Every structure is written in C-alpha cells, then in structure tokens.
C-alpha cells in the first residue's frame, strides 16, 4: 500500500475533535487533498512536526492531536521524540509513513531501513506503539488505526509503505491562510 492510500483511508477514523499536523512535502499535500480541512499543513520546518504536535496537544488537551510524518522528517526530529517520551501527553498520536526515501525531492534514500522501530519506540518510553511491515489487507490497517486513535496514552504507529506514483501539486493556501483557517476551526 502507498502512503497516499494510507492517508486517504484515515478519513473514516477522523472526527471533528481530531487536529492533524502534517509534515512538509507529499504528506501535507495528501493530507490536504484526502482528509477533512482545515488542518496544519507544514510547508517547511523539516523535523519539527512532532514538536508542533506536542505543543498543540498541550494547548488542546480535550482534542486528539494526530501527527502524520514521513520517515525522513521523523528521523530529522528524532531527539524531539525523547521529549515526547518524557512528558507523555496522552492526546498525542503519531503515524510514521516509512517509504525509506525522500520522495518529494526525487526519491533519494533515507537511512530508515536500518532502524528497528519497535525497539526504538520502546526505548524512547513511548507507552503505546506498533509497526506494520506490510499491509496486505485494509482491515489490518483499519484495526491499527483504531488501536492508535482510541489509545488513552501517547501512541505511535510506524507503517512501511510503498513509494507514491507521483507528487501532488502544492497546497494552494498561503501559510498565513492555513494558520487562520485552522485556528478559526478549533
């Protein structure tokens, strides 16, 4: 299954109380195109989506905050995961879409293939975590979404995905517009 298919299939699991932070590049473009709007669509600040998610989760404890990030972005912000492991903000959930490449910039390899995500997440003190090596059926993915999004603790789901076929167009909203629409909707 490709990353964009995973994002599109999140739709039925997202409620009005879910606030999404999506990492720069393809992930935010797919989130913009396939999931309810408005959400936080990052244009830059590579490595920071998890930190932004932590801040948002602290400010909005009654809402569920879902960070969707690629593996390159996650690895750049890896040290921020120790902060997340330490503070254990229960309403923060993270999905890592791992295609082992920097897809938006032309498919250069990341070093993600060397990481054992289950051991990493356990070692970071993340309370609830899982990893899907391959998605053979949608039902397995849906079950993993349910577990992630109903978890009462900080939870992280790592998913190995296939490379997307093509990059989507940039998000038409200007960054200030993204901020204003998102904040107005909370």
């Amino acid at each position: 299954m490709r990353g964009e298919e995973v994002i599109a299939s999140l739709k039925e699991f997202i409620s009005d109380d879910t606030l999404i932070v999506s990492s720069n590049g393809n992930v935010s473009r797919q989130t913009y195109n396939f999931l309810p709007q408005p959400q936080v669509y990052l244009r830059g600040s590579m490595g920071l989506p998890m930190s932004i998610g932590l801040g948002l989760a602290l400010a909005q404890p009654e809402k569920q905050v879902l960070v969707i990030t690629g593996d390159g972005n996650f690895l750049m912000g890896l040290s921020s995961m120790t902060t997340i492991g330490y503070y254990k903000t229960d309403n923060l959930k993270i999905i890592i879409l791992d295609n082992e490449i920097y897809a938006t910039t032309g498919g250069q390899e990341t070093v993600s293939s060397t990481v054992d995500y289950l051991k990493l997440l356990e070692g970071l003190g993340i309370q609830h975590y899982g990893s899907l090596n391959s998605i053979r059926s949608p039902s397995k993915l849906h079950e993993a979404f349910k577990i992630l999004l109903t978890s009462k603790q900080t939870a992280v789901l790592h998913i190995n995905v296939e490379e997307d076929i093509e990059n989507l167009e940039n998000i038409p909203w200007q960054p200030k517009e993204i901020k204003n629409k998102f904040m107005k909707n909370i």
Partner: protein
Amino acid sequence: MIKSIDILNYLSENNFELSTGVPCSYFKELFIELDKSAVIQYIAATREDEAVGIACGYYLGKKNCFLIMQNSGLATIGDAFTSLAQLYEIPLLIFVSYRGLEPDKTFPEHVIMGKVTESVLEAYGIPYWNMKGENWREILDEALEHMNKDSSVVCILVEKEVII
C-alpha cells in the same frame, strides 16, 4: 538586576501558560523559579528548534508560550524561524542570553556568536531589545506590543547577572 519571580509574574499576567527552551547559566535563577511555578509549565526541549516547534504548536492551539535559550541557539534555529514562525506569522517571545560579549579565555565557545548575535537577529529581521535595569517592564511591554501587532518573533537579549 531583575528578580526572576517578578518576570514570571509579569509573563503570567500577560497570559503565558507555557515555556520551553534549552537552559543557559544566565537563567539559572529563572529556571529555579519556573520549577516552583504553579502557573507556568516548562517543557525541556532537546534543541532550540524543537522549542520553536512546541511554542508554535501551542500558539496554533490558541495559547501562549515563551522561549528561553542561549544565543548559541540562534544559530540552530534558522529554519524554524524562516519556514515556520515567520512564514505562518506566529508571534513568539524569546529570551536569549547574551554570551560572549567580551573576550573570554575561559569560555571561548561563546566569543564568535557573541560578536554576531545582533547581526544574526537583524539578518532574520527579528526585532530585539537588550533588557537590563529598572525599565524592564516597559521593554517587555514594547516587545509584546510589537509581537502582537505584527504577529512576529521578538527577542529579549539578557546579559550576565541581569536576571537574579
């Protein structure tokens, strides 16, 4: 000299409920007071750019967070400024210790950053104030007014032994 508790009270009165950053010894007393504070929580970030991410996320959630860091952190957080806080016009108040102002044989690691600190802020287009002396409230009032009016990042430079 400015008492840490007075600064925290001022910030609390101005609706700051969270703080984050990376410590500097110039803020040692401030961190002791923050640790005791029941109204302002502190999140210990691992890097200064991470702290910018946390503060921006907190703002998007409609609450205010200020940052504390050493001026060395200004060299770490360029992209967090230009492609997040400044790009999305997110107001941020940052307290930055002004290390390396004088030649220092004991701490040579601060000397180069000390020389370029103000040029770096000017290059980013970030307004800054050097906070010292008894008019610190007026300085913070002015900085916050600027921050809110322009939805911009503002920096407060803090020299040695200014905050006690």
